[in-house]
């Protein structure tokens, strides 16, 4: 067993309840419970080491390149939180077993819960802050699933969205903060960061880092002004609320503050921000808690308030304050989980959570009432329960701090007010529900729930008492280590229920009396607050979201007009704007390499190319002329390749040119021959400007490249083509050997394009003119004799040439591509001259199969080298001496090239024959072409 098990077991265990979807609920609950229980056992194995002051760690490399390793640790703080998460988790699962109705899908519930549990455990045990962040985001997502569990209810969906948006946005801020911290420390491992604490605090980016991390923590922990999402998350099933708002989700923010306490705390800014935020949150939360009529609403705001209290203690940051904060985290988890479960029981049994309808339930549910009173008393901070002690510590710390100079007195005063409100809403929870007159008619007649349903509450209530009476036995060990981890110094915690008569005790007494007074005067408070009724956080939030999405939509509408011309122009103008400034200084782009002299051939070629390019552009309205001009361009490009020592390119370009022009002429048959309307002068002018700028940029870039000094990696290829690849044509050796993988990819692309075209042509209803543009009908002779005769002569000759080109490819210009295109051109000529049917009678080959066979041949040649334990596509060659033929070279690269050849033939023929078939009225039915 190891530490990673604790995180991974619930993560993968989330599948278990889904796997037993058909089983009965007890089985599902059983397998789900098994996981946290196992985790707890593992945790207990490690606990002694942690309690003795060690920090067990474990690491698995994940993405070392970005400093993200799967590193986990179990220091005191992690142990405290992991214990709470797992312990309360077990109780929640047991409780949910009874809480969920028969219509609820418990598998989905348990799965989300386990996923959430795993992400929380990941946060608290992460030893790498990037890993921490990954789990942080995972809690946002899994809590979204939990809050929105009843997705048929729009409240649940909205609440879930709001929680996700708020905590997700905070998560992004947190990531930015963590990256800054990691960059300053030079590592994302916690220990390195702790070691660099002084460096971080002194750094210029300390302030942004702190603010970003605090944004993450405050959104997660629902601190003011982000407290609005938490009450709406109450749309979740009660077990979820109990879990998320007692021990987990919202505590993640608190955990973050504690985790980074050694690194970020102890500065003026930290103190001011965290303490004041906590204080305001505590008061705001407590005030609204008192006003809520919904039981869960009351508890939600009281959670906000107590989180504020913990946050404030962490802001004060002394050793005593940290102990108080951690202690209160435990206590709050115990009593708040208990209270939520009680509220769930009341809701479950009576059918309502509205305190205006509930009253006098004491006589009907005595057990529930007793348990509720214990946990509520703990929340109110009554002795002898655990809440009393942490509240005393809190008041003591509020008194001790002197951080605001002469104004420090207002903190203990406001702390007492917070405690007062806490007493008031605790009384309200108990008095309104269980007393306050006789029982009234309710949707259901309530009674105590099954004993097992209140068992978790019983356990929690017991803990409240036990910790209260024997704090040293129960929690001092873990608090020592947790506080040591937060303050980065050894701590020895001393807790006792009775502190003697002192100021905090007096403040507690004032709080209790004040709380009772406030409770009695609550009606005035309700009346006072009624004037603010229109303000609902949910509506405000949704209005903001709606506005943002409207703005995005209108922006998008303006941007996405459906005009390709606009898009392209937009992209091109961006290119100009970005590139032009840096290229405007022409002298800077000249590299100083001496230029070659201009010879006559190049000059003529360039002029023809320029002329043809201009003609293509200007005559685009007469499309046939445009195509003719395009073919001139292609031809001269091919000559340019030949002139500049690239015979392979020249040949390839030439045959590709032939094939593509044929294809385009075919396409022109289905398209208008002329563009009827001309663009407006304005638009033409604009396009010319854009085109000139782009052309200028390309020319400048090209000039810069051509004149800069030259160093190439090609010497390797030049040196090794013969010895390593067995060929003297270096380009071909590169294609089929050194960089054969590129070529394999390329023929695959070609095959995919051909397959795509095949699909595009499927069921195409082409627009078929019966005459040319001037109204002349097509000639009745479909296959002119002259062409037929010539084509028939050319075919065998072309085949021989292709075979020759193919075979010599390794040593002289040529190869599979060129040979394939030559064969394809000759075949196309047959189609043009004799028609589809004629060809099919004589040469019935399925081009798809041919193409696939080609790709497979190439791939298998590559795989073949595995048989000899060589890497993919290693080639092998030897020299054979045959009679008559003489000595020649045989290379496996030739097989590869054969694959290329077959693919090129297959793909080209498939494209052209499929398309050409469209032009014949009598369409063959056979699918082979």
């Amino acid at each position: 067993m190891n530490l990673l098990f604790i995180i991974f077991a619930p993560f993968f265990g989330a599948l278990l309840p889904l796997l037993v979807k058909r089983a009965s609920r007890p089985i599902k609950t059983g397998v789900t419970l098994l996981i946290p229980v196992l985790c707890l056992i593992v945790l207990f194995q490690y606990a002694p080491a942690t309690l003795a002051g060690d920090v067990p760690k474990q690491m698995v490399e994940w993405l070392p390149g970005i400093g993200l390793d799967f590193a986990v640790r179990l220091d005191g703080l992690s142990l405290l939180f992991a214990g709470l998460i797992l312990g309360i988790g077990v109780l929640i699962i047991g409780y949910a077993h009874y809480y969920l109705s028969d219509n609820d899908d418990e598998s989905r519930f348990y799965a989300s819960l386990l996923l959430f549990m795993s992400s929380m455990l990941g946060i608290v045990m992460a030893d790498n802050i990037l890993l921490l962040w990954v789990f942080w985001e995972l809690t946002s997502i899994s809590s979204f699933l939990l809050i929105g569990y009843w997705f048929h209810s729009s409240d649940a969906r909205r609440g879930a969205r709001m929680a996700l948006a708020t905590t997700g946005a905070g998560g992004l801020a947190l990531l930015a903060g963590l990256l800054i911290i990691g960059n300053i420390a030079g590592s994302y491992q916690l220990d390195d960061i702790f070691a660099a604490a002084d460096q971080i605090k002194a750094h210029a980016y300390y302030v942004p880092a702190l603010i970003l991390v605090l944004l993450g923590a405050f959104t997660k922990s629902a601190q003011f002004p982000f407290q609005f999402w938490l009450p709406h998350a109450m749309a979740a099933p009660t077990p979820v609320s109990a879990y998320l708002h007692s021990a987990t989700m919202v505590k993640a923010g608190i955990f973050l503050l504690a985790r980074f306490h050694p690194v970020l705390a102890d500065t003026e800014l930290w103190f001011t921000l965290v303490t004041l935020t906590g204080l305001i949150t505590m008061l705001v939360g407590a005030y609204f808690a008192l006003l809520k009529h919904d039981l869960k609403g009351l508890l939600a705001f009281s959670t906000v308030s107590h989180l504020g209290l913990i946050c404030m203690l962490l802001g004060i940051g002394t050793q005593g304050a940290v102990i108080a904060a951690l202690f209160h985290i435990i206590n709050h988890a115990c009593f708040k989980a208990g209270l939520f479960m009680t509220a769930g029981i009341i809701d479950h049994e009576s059918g309502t959570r509205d305190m205006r309808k509930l009253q006098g339930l004491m006589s009907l549910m005595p057990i529930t009432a007793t348990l509720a009173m214990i946990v509520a008393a703990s929340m109110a901070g009554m002795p002898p329960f655990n809440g009393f002690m942490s509240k005393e510590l809190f008041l003591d710390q509020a008194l001790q701090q002197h951080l605001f100079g002469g104004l420090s007195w207002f903190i203990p005063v406001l702390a007492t007010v917070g405690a007062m409100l806490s007493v008031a809403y605790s009384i309200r929870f108990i008095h309104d529900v269980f007393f306050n007159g006789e029982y009234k008619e309710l949707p259901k007649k309530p009674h105590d729930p099954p004993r097992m349903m209140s068992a978790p509450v019983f356990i929690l209530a017991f803990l409240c008492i036990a910790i209260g009476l024997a704090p040293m036995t129960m929690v001092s060990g873990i608090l020592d280590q947790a506080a040591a981890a937060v303050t980065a110094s050894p701590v020895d915690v001393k807790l006792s229920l009775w502190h003697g008569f002192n100021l905090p005790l007096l403040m507690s007494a004032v709080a209790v009396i004040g709380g009772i007074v406030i409770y009695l005067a609550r009606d005035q408070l309700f009346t006072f607050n009624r004037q603010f009724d229109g303000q609902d956080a949910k509506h405000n939030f949704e209005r903001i979201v709606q506005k943002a999405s409207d703005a995005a939509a209108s922006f998008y509408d303006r941007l996405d007009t459906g005009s390709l011309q606009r898009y392209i122009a937009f992209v091109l103008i961006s290119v100009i704007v970005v590139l032009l400034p840096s290229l405007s200084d022409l002298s800077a782009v000249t590299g100083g390499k001496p230029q070659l002299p201009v010879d006559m051939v190049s000059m003529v070629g360039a002029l023809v190319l320029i002329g043809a390019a201009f003609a293509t552009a200007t005559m685009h309205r007469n499309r046939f002329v445009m195509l003719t001009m395009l073919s001139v361009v292609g031809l001269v490009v091919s000559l340019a390749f030949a002139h500049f020592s690239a015979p392979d390119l020249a040949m390839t370009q030439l045959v590709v040119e032939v094939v593509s022009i044929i294809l385009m002429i075919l396409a022109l048959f289905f398209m208008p021959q002329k563009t009827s309307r001309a663009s407006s002068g304005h638009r033409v002018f604009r396009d010319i400007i854009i085109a000139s700028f782009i052309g200028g940029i390309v020319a400048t870039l090209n000039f810069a490249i051509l004149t800069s000094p030259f160093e190439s990696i090609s010497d390797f290829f030049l040196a090794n083509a013969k010895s390593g690849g067995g060929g003297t044509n270096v380009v071909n050796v590169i294609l089929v050997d050194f960089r054969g993988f590129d070529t394999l990819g390329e023929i695959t692309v070609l095959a995919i394009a051909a397959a795509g075209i095949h699909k595009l042509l499927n069921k195409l209803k082409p627009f078929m003119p019966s005459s040319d543009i001037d109204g002349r009908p097509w000639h009745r002779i479909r296959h002119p004799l002259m062409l037929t005769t010539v084509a028939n002569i050319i075919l065998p000759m072309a085949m021989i040439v292709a075979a020759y080109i193919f075979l010599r490819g390794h040593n002289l210009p040529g190869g599979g591509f060129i040979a394939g295109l030559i064969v394809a051109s000759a075949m196309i000529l047959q189609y043009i001259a004799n028609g589809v049917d004629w060809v099919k009678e004589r040469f019935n080959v399925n081009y798809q199969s041919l193409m696939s066979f080609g790709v497979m041949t190439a791939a298998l040649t590559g795989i073949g080298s595995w048989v000899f334990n060589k890497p993919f596509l290693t080639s092998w060659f030897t020299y054979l001496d045959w009679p008559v033929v003489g000595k020649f070279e045989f290379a496996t690269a030739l097989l590869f090239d054969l694959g290329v050849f077959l693919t090129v033939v297959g793909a080209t023929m498939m494209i052209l024959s499929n398309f050409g078939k469209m032009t014949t009225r009598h369409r063959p039915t056979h699918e082979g072409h």
Partner: protein
Amino acid sequence: METLYSVTVGILTACSVFLILRGRSFPVVVGITMLSYAVNLFLFSTGRLTIDGAPIYGTQETYADPLPQALVLTAIVIGFAMTAYSIILAVRTRGELGTDEVNQQDNSTEGNR
């Protein structure tokens, strides 16, 4: 020579871009095809210009850079695949929509193309 070469590539690019900015599918496809020529020339020139230096053993004193040649050869074939695909797409669009305009019809406010 280098100046002439780069100016030619620039003009070829400019003409292609002009065609790509037209409002009908056919000139756009022709523009794309011509642009692929320009791009191939551009990429080819990253190996610098060499006359009488075909990289074939035993034929020359010095060899031109073979690597850009091999890459451009690949690019030519891929360019062909792209041209073929886009032209068939244009035909298909014409068949489906009855028009070869590249702009969406219903909310297009620019009738001048």
